[in-house]
């Protein structure tokens, strides 16, 4: 125990002595948590629309003003040449073209039917799909208005109507930040701990000070424990600042579930994560190696965790990778506990899996750490 105390003293001193490191550990995650969730907004709005009006009738004008006043669309350009509008799409000034053919009003009244052409920039498929759907809906609405104008209400009311009432639970105002802040906090805690931890032992290797520890009678597991505990504490502190200071004060996020449960999971998660960091550092000789390996895994951890894109939508083989990713489970638990107030019985599986990760990573790290070369 006394040995551990001295080792810990050494580790803490080394961390807190480095003045350029401290802001990286504490200030940067907090700043990023303050700023980055504001950038996360999937909602499709502000779609720039180019209108090509070959008709210039009162109908076409009414339709255009209805589209613009819907709030989803911003008029980028109103002309009468399709190729001009297409140039707007090419230069990204416009996302969507609506082409109204000549004699639109006349033909609609005379032939009872008229076509409109919509062309969408579909590089971002989801945005294109939604934008196209919004526009079609608005046009459908406008179409109904026209029918009413030509007064045939009796016939239209006969057809049966299915009314869809929708309700949104847990986040009735559909605030996307409630969803993103817990996830981004997880990623920031993960990055701080994984990078710091994987660099730590390697640094001693590269500079050569590890020899001095190896010749002392310090036991392997004590040495590793002393490397783990400081980062475990740092992880806890960063998480606490993020949850209470940024989440509560800045984003108004009050966890619906038990805070004790969150901390319980966090402490287990940190053990698993730090074990992973240690394992990486036992494989590398230089900080550059450790860093590039850590970078590789952190990128995969972040992008395959369901933080930005849902795990359900991935192909089957990618789901397997997501399931082998500890970050996936922590993000899941965070969102479940913070937003939905899930209790222990609902997340016990995640607890078990995380305990498994913790055991595997740490055992592998201890086995792989050799005191002699």
């Amino acid at each position: 125990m006394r040995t551990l105390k001295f080792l810990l003293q050494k580790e803490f001193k080394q961390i807190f002595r480095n003045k350029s490191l401290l802001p990286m550990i504490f200030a940067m995650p907090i700043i990023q948590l303050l700023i980055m969730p504001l950038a996360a907004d999937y909602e499709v709005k502000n779609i720039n629309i180019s209108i090509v009006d070959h008709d210039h009738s009162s109908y076409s004008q009414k339709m255009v003003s209805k589209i613009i006043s819907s709030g989803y669309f911003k008029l980028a350009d109103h002309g009468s040449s399709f190729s001009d509008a297409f140039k707007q799409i090419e230069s990204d000034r416009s996302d969507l073209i609506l082409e109204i053919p000549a004699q639109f009003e006349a033909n609609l009244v005379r032939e009872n039917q008229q076509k409109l052409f919509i062309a969408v920039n579909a590089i971002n498929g989801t945005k294109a799909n939604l934008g196209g759907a919004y526009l079609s809906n608005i046009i459908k609405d406008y179409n109904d208005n026209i029918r009413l104008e030509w007064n045939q209400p009796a016939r239209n009311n006969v057809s049966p109507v299915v009314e869809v009432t929708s309700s949104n639970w847990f986040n009735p105002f559909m605030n996307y930040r409630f969803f993103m802040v817990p996830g981004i906090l997880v990623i920031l805690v993960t990055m701080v701990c994984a990078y710091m931890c994987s660099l730590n032992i390697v640094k001693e290797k590269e500079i050569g000070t590890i020899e001095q520890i190896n010749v002392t009678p310090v036991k392997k597991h004590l040495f590793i424990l002393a490397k783990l505990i400081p980062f475990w504490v740092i992880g806890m502190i960063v998480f606490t600042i993020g949850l209470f200071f940024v989440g509560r004060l800045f984003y108004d996020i009050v966890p619906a579930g038990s805070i004790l449960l969150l901390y319980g999971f966090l402490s287990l998660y940190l053990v698993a994560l730090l074990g992973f960091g240690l394992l990486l550092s036992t494989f590398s000789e230089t900080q550059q190696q450790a860093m590039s390996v850590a970078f590789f895994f952190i990128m995969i951890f972040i992008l395959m965790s369901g933080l930005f894109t849902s795990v359900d939508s991935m192909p089957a083989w990618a789901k397997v990778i997501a399931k082998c990713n500890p970050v996936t489970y922590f993000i899941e638990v965070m969102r479940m506990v913070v937003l939905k107030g899930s209790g222990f019985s609902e997340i016990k599986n995640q607890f078990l899996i995380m305990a498994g990760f913790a055991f595997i990573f740490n055992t592998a790290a201890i086995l792989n750490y050799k005191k002699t070369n």
Partner: protein
Amino acid sequence: MIIQLIKIFVKQFLTFIKKEFYHVFRDKKTLLMLFGLPIVQIVLFGFALTNEIKESKIVVCDYAKDAASRQIITQLDASRNFEIEKTILTHQQIENSFKEGKAKLIIVFPANFNDDLLHLKKAQVQVIADASDPNTANTLTNYVTNIINGYQKELSQNDPVPYQIITETRMLYNPELKGATNFVPGVMALVLMLISVLMTSVSIVREKELGTMEILLVSPVSPFMVIISKAVPYFALSLVNLTVILLLSVFLLDMPFNGSVLLLFAESSLLIITALSLGLLISNSTASQQTAMLISLMAMLIPTMMLTGFMFPIENMPWPLQMISNIVPSKWYYIIVKSIMIKGLGFSAVWKETLILLGMTIFLLALSFKKFKIRLQ
């Protein structure tokens, strides 16, 4: 005389570059990462990342069990957006299945659904979404509403509809609405930029930390050449990586390639040089490898990921963030790649973005030369 000087100069420079190449190639593990990382990431993310909502678990509580409700359920089942489970849940059970994460959306058909529809001409369906993920909730509700509207249209199809406006929608550039078309250029920008920054950011500070910097400084080569020769091997490696990434995205991920290959290579080289200059600047302004790496990874990873524009549309962000996104080099490169690869445009469409990247490079390089200290403490 002058020719001889230049000869000596070139020889010195080449020797330095050779030294740097030795450094890079000797470290097999880092080299493996350097090549393996982009390949794995482009393949992995190219296939796995998509904004689409597919195979979401939804529960249908059918209290009606009549012809109409069954027909709608069959139509829902046919969509690959959903994975349907049919059970009857109480209010409490609905809440529990959300809390356990077993369902994303619950559809309730009330009893007498078909009767209401036929006789009262009006029936209700209730859709309850787990809005803890607002995007998924919104999209799924939209999908369900569309399918039900389609069913309703089928019912009323017998009546001829007067004054009908038909919309014909054409999806440009990406008719199948694939996720990869949007994500692959983004991942390309992300990977190329971060690797270049990461690798160069440790290069100079490493020599400082190991004490070999002193030897370089007393050599007759100018400090300018010392810095440039650090970046050359990584530039060469990044070009190899770029080639591999492009081949993979065209042949494996089925990305279109409509523009000029030469132009894309030129623009990519520009991004790589911008990133290398940024790495050099970080390396020149830090005192330890640890700090340099944390800056290039911790400080840059998430902002680059989110402000490049492939995850979230930049035009939705609050204006201060839109301003910040302008200083992210990968944002401009992302626009360039989309224009060249997918839209097939030429240089005249991307000269502005190119100019911005060029300006950034010059600024970063100038700053890092200024920060380079030729005296040790």
